[in-house]
């Protein structure tokens, strides 16, 4: 058997529907152990005898990897996706989630308190000035 024929035989086994060439349907192969064993033996024999004598072109391996890299670009991870992933992982931890909610509550409380104090101080300053202007005829427009 020439190398070409051997290759064709091997290809024949690897092609879809190759088993049909032997007149056997796939279901029958699974159910018929003798035929499958015969085919496997033939295939094994062909594979054992198969020798590749042609030299590989220069930088063949590198080119293969380059082609693979071109065909399968790495999935790009956006910063937003990274953030979402990080949030999901962080919120899955009860201690961290509790801390997050507690800290935000405290920030809200402190912010509200400080803002209220600021408004109170400003209002008190304005009203005290208005009182002084009311009782002192030498300060500002009045009466």
């Amino acid at each position: 058997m020439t190398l070409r024929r051997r290759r064709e035989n091997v290809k024949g086994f690897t092609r879809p529907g190759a088993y049909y060439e032997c007149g056997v349907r796939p279901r029958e192969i699974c159910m018929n152990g003798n035929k499958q064993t015969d085919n496997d033996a033939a295939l094994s024999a062909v594979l054992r005898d198969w020798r590749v004598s042609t030299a590989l072109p220069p930088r063949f391996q590198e080119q293969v990897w380059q082609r693979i890299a071109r065909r399968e670009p790495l999935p790009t991870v956006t910063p937003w996706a990274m953030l979402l992933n990080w949030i999901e992982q962080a919120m899955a931890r009860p201690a961290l989630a509790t801390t997050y909610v507690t800290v935000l509550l405290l920030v809200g409380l402190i912010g509200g308190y400080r803002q209220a104090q600021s408004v109170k101080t400003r209002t008190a300053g304005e009203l005290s000035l208005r009182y002084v202007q009311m009782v002192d005829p030498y300060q500002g427009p009045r009466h």
Partner: protein
Amino acid sequence: MKRAWLILMAGVGGALLAYAGLYYAGTAGCRGMAQSKSPELAWLKDEFHLGNDEFARISKLHESYVAACAERCRRVDMKNMELKQLLASTNAVTPEIAKALAETAQLQAECQKEMLQHFYEVSQTMAPEQGKRYLAWVQERTLSADTHATMQH
């Protein structure tokens, strides 16, 4: 992911509620003062911890003083106008000008005396400690201040 978003939103919502609640509660007094009939007196009541009776007496004193002060302001304005006319009619200090100047100064002194009298009456209406504090506070901002260089009437 849904759980993570729920926790995130709960945190933000809780913070906003806490902020709004404390701000609303903290400024309730200010809003009450600003919406009162006389915000200045409402501030006085709050600042010097006046009881309702004290506040009622001080409000009465204040109304009486403000009405009398307005009358004195009117007299000062008239005297200033008279003095302005006298100054425009001559280029020397005539007896009429000297008299008008003296009367203006007398009116201004009367204003200050009445103002000081009002401060004392108000302070005596308050609790002793608060009255003392009020007197020091109001004198610092009126009689002791540099604002008396010019009259604003």
